[in-house]
Structure formats: C-alpha cells, structure tokens
C-alpha cells in the first residue's frame, strides 16, 4: 500500500475543482441555514437549474457562454421566488418540505421525455463548455509539486472556481458584518422579535434564499463546465446531504466554515476510498468487493456526522460560545 500516493491524491481532490464546486454550493447553504436559519434541503435543485441554465442556453439555443451563466443565475432567482413566496410567511418546516420536493420534481421534469428537445432528457447535454476551455491561459502540460500535479485544464478550472469561492466568501463576510447581516442573524434567532422591531422579515428571508440559491446555481453551472456533459440524475437528493455534512463539519454560521468543510470532507472521502480500494486489491479483506466502496463511503459520512455531533457540535471552526448559549 502506497501511503504517499493515497495522501497526495486525497490532497489533489481536496483542492481540486469538485471540492471548490461543493464549497461554493455550501456557502449558499450557509447563508440559508447558518445565518438565516432557513432549512433548505433542496440546494441540489439550485445546482440543477444552474447547470442546465448553461447547458441548455449554449447547446440548445446557441447562446454564448456568458449568457448561459446569466440564464443560470436568473433560473436560481426564479426558483427561489417559487419556493419562497408561498412558504416564507409560514412556519419554517414548510420551506424545508418544499425545497426537498421541488428539487426532486425539477430533476424529474428535466429528465422527462417531453423535455428531451430542450434538456436532452435522460441523455442530458454535451458540448457547451468549449468557450470556457478555449479561454484557458495556461499552456498545455502538467503543473504541480512533488506527487501533486494538475493538468492545464484542471488548473484553469481551479483558478476560476477558487476565485469564485473567494469572491463568495468576501460577499458573505461584507454582508454578515453589516446591519443587513445583523437582521438576518436576528431572524435566525427569532423572527417574530425582529418583525416586532419594524423589519420586513419576509423580504430578508427572500433575499437570503435568492442569494444562497444563486451561489448554488453557480456551483451547478461549474459542474456542467467541469464535466462537459450533464444528466439530470447526477442531481440526486444526496448531493444536498453531502453539502449539509460539509457545512456542519466545517462550522455553520462562519464565513469559512463551508469552505473548510468541503475541503476536509473531500480529503477524508478520498483517503477512505483509496484505502479501501488498495485493501480490497491486496485481498486482505476478501469479503470486500470494489462495488461496496460507494456504500461504505456513505456510512463513513454518517459516522463522521455522528462523531461531530457528539464531540464537536459547532463544527471545526464553529463558535463554541455561540453554540453553548442557552437558547431558551
């Protein structure tokens, strides 16, 4: 077993494009849950409309790539309004039920045969990311130090993605350290109290839902760009649960919590996958088949969350003082 190989590939994943995509989507979830207290269990729905915003615009309608991103953002705004207008005046659980349902319904709609002409149905869409890779400023080749190396393509993706993550963090930091952020956090604590002080709670919750959803849509759009092909079935509900796991692992209600959570989670997942794979290939664990790795990985995420709740409920960089405050 080659530990150096396992560690370096885990490190590559942790700072690679996928981790950045998840970090971006988790930042949106952090605004929803960590700061506003909105229980969004359908962040994957925003990623879906974001991914298809780009793919459909470019492949089906022949629009330029930048217009595709604009369509992604617009779709996220529409989805947030659809979700928020009927539910945000009601008790908190209505939103969570709606988010999980609407995200799943959206996936089924996008894969339906009547939508095939636009979305490609179950076959999805391809060939829309060309402009992105044509703009790659890095000459072809491998870049890296030691055992860690990335292709020029990945380096370009990582530059754009971590740039987006940094921008999202900056936006979040500015917002949260402003009077707007104070109202948002007040709503998380008790929305009736905030309303009694003359703040239009509905509008704030809507703004939070929209902005967090836009972060999700941008993450989705970058999934499409990264893979250069998308199908509806990669936007399954478990994507949202991975995002929740990352957010809670890193620390909800902290600017860098979701980013750290995504990085650490992808690191651990890769170490785990590679360990199992090399163990099963050496035949030490004869009962273990290659196909079991995926299932065990879910179990590992569950176990991590369990340990987290027991030993460090505030997450890696969560504020213990805030966590321990007597909420009643």
């Amino acid at each position: 077993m080659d530990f150096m190989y396992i560690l370096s590939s885990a490190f590559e994943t942790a700072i690679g494009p996928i981790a950045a995509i998840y970090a971006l989507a988790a930042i949106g979830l952090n605004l929803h849950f960590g700061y506003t207290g909105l229980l969004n269990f359908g962040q994957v729905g925003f990623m879906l409309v974001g991914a298809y915003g780009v793919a459909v615009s470019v492949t089906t309608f022949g629009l330029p790539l930048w217009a595709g991103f604009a369509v992604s953002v617009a779709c996220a705004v529409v989805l947030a309004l659809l979700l928020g207008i009927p539910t945000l005046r009601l008790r908190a659980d209505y939103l969570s039920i709606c988010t999980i349902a609407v995200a799943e319904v959206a996936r089924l709609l996008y894969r339906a045969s009547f939508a095939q002409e636009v979305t490609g149905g179950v076959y999805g869409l391809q060939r829309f990311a060309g402009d992105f890779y044509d703009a790659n400023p890095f000459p072809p080749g491998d870049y890296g130090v030691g055992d860690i190396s990335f292709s020029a393509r990945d380096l370009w993706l990582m530059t754009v993605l971590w740039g987006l993550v940094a921008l999202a963090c900056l936006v979040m930091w500015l917002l949260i350290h402003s009077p707007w952020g104070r109202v948002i956090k007040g709503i998380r604590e008790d929305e009736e109290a905030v309303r009694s002080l003359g703040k239009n709670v509905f509008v704030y919750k809507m703004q939070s839902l929209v902005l967090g959803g836009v972060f999700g849509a941008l993450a989705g759009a970058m999934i499409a760009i990264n893979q250069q092909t998308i199908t509806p079935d990669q936007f399954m509900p478990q994507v949202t649960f991975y995002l929740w796991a990352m957010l809670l692992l890193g620390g909800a209600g902290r600017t860098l919590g979701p980013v750290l959570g995504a990085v650490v989670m992808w690191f651990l997942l890769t170490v785990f996958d590679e360990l199992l794979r090399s163990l099963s290939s050496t035949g030490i664990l004869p009962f273990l088949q290659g196909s079991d790795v995926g299932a065990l990985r879910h179990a590992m995420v569950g176990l991590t969350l369990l340990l987290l709740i027991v030993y460090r409920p505030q997450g890696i960089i969560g504020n213990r003082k805030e966590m321990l405050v007597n909420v009643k």
Partner: protein
Amino acid sequence: MSSDPTPVDRMAGVAPEPGVTKPDPILTVDGVRRSFGGLTAVDVEHLEVQRGTITALIGPNGAGKSTLFNLLTGFDRVDAGEWSFEGRRLNRLGGHQVARTGMVRTFQLTKALTRLTVMDNMLLAAPGQTGERMWGAFARGLWGRQERANAERAEALLERFKLLAKKDEMAGSLSGGQRKLLEMARSLMVNPSMVMLDEPMAGVNPALVQSLLGHITALRDEGMTVLFVEHDMDVIMGISDWIVVLAQGRVIAEGRPADIRANKEVVDAYLGTHHEEPSDTAVPAAAEPEEDR
C-alpha cells in the same frame, strides 16, 4: 406609588365606564373580535388609550390580554373590527408595518435574540438604517456614521436599564429578568410613540422592579404612551393613570386605580378567580399611597 407624593390626575373628567371616550386618544379600538374555534378570546366593543398616560390592562389568565396585543400589533388577524393609531387605520398591516407607525410591543414570553450580543440586539432595532438594505450593506462608508450614532443611543439606553456592563455578551447568557429589561430597552431603540409591554415585570428580580417602574414613569413623563399587562396589584395601582379590566375577552371596567379598587365586579372577576390571596389584603395594601386624595 409612594415615590410620587402629588399624583396628577391625567384622566381628569373621564368617567370610569367601559368604552368611555378620552380627550386625546392615541389608540382607538372598535369592535375587535377574535375567536379560536368556539372560544371568543377577544371581543372589545370600544376602547381608547389616552396619549401620554400609563394604562394598565389587567384581567385573569386567559382573559385575552396577549391576544389583544397580538391583534393590535399585527401579529394575529382579527375576525372583525377596526382600530387606529395616531388617526391611522391599522387593519391589515403586518407586524413590522405597525411597529413602523410608532407602536412597538414586547412579548409575554421574552424574545431576546440569544446568539446575538446585547449590543447587536439593540442596534438591530434602530429604524431606517442604510446598511440594513442588501445593497447598502456593501458600502460601509454609507452607514458607518449612522451605526456609531445608533451605538451611542443604545449605550445610553443600556446604561439606563443597567445592562451596559453586559453589552458585549450574548443575550442568551442574561437572566430571565435581564432579558425582560433588554427587550424593553430594545423596543425603545425603535423610537416608538407608544410601547405595549406584555408582563414586563414577570420574572424580574424584585430589587429591579422598582427601577423598572421608575423607567416606565420616566418614559411617560417624556411623553410616551405606555400600555402594559401586569398581574401585581401593587405595581398596577402604584403607577397606572388608567386601568382597563378585561375578562373573557370583554372590557368589563375602566377607571383610575381608585375607581377599579372600588368596583365590586372587578374584585369578583379578577381578584376572586385569579388571586389566591384574599382580596381584603391585596387591595387595601395598594390603596395606601392614594389615601390622601
């Protein structure tokens, strides 16, 4: 209260009858009704609150006091009726819109924003902040000065309510009584012309009650109108200019403290069912300071 040796009758010439009109009402309620299933929780035919006074709303548990507060402040929907504040009809306004008209309420079950600091609780309440709009939030230059002015005002209020030492602590670390004080101070940050306090003294340390009463009378003397729900008869009789008695959702009596004390119906309805103490100890004890009238 005994600290006020020459009580002024701010309600001179007003007859102690349910639904009586007042010379300068800030709040007027007409036919407001609310029922929950078969239970009529509130059924107020006519009620006026005189500007610049302390009006107590009393009545046994379940009389509908909190429900009336909720209805008037836009936190519940009336089944019928209308009400106006400063001459403006408030029907259909949401809770935040009512607060912006200058009528700010607190809650019977205290709502401190626990994972915000005491200072942030105060600052949040300041009205019309540029930085509380999403786009304004990015331009610190636009709201920094406003924030500092609000912080100064907040500190003055916290000082007054003896919470200044706690300003950087989480509101959730305060005691129940301190949370009541914070909620009251916070409501004042909105710059209201009328505050509606739902049991502001409940759970407050008796030593603090006296100073809290001092704050309430001081607010009234500065021109604010105060409507408050309270159970402690000494407190009610001591500081109220006017008392409204609610029983089973209806106003059964109104009047100065002396009128209420002499009202047989009230003593039966209120003290009879709610108070465990015999009424002859509770009422005369509160009566003492007023004896010289």
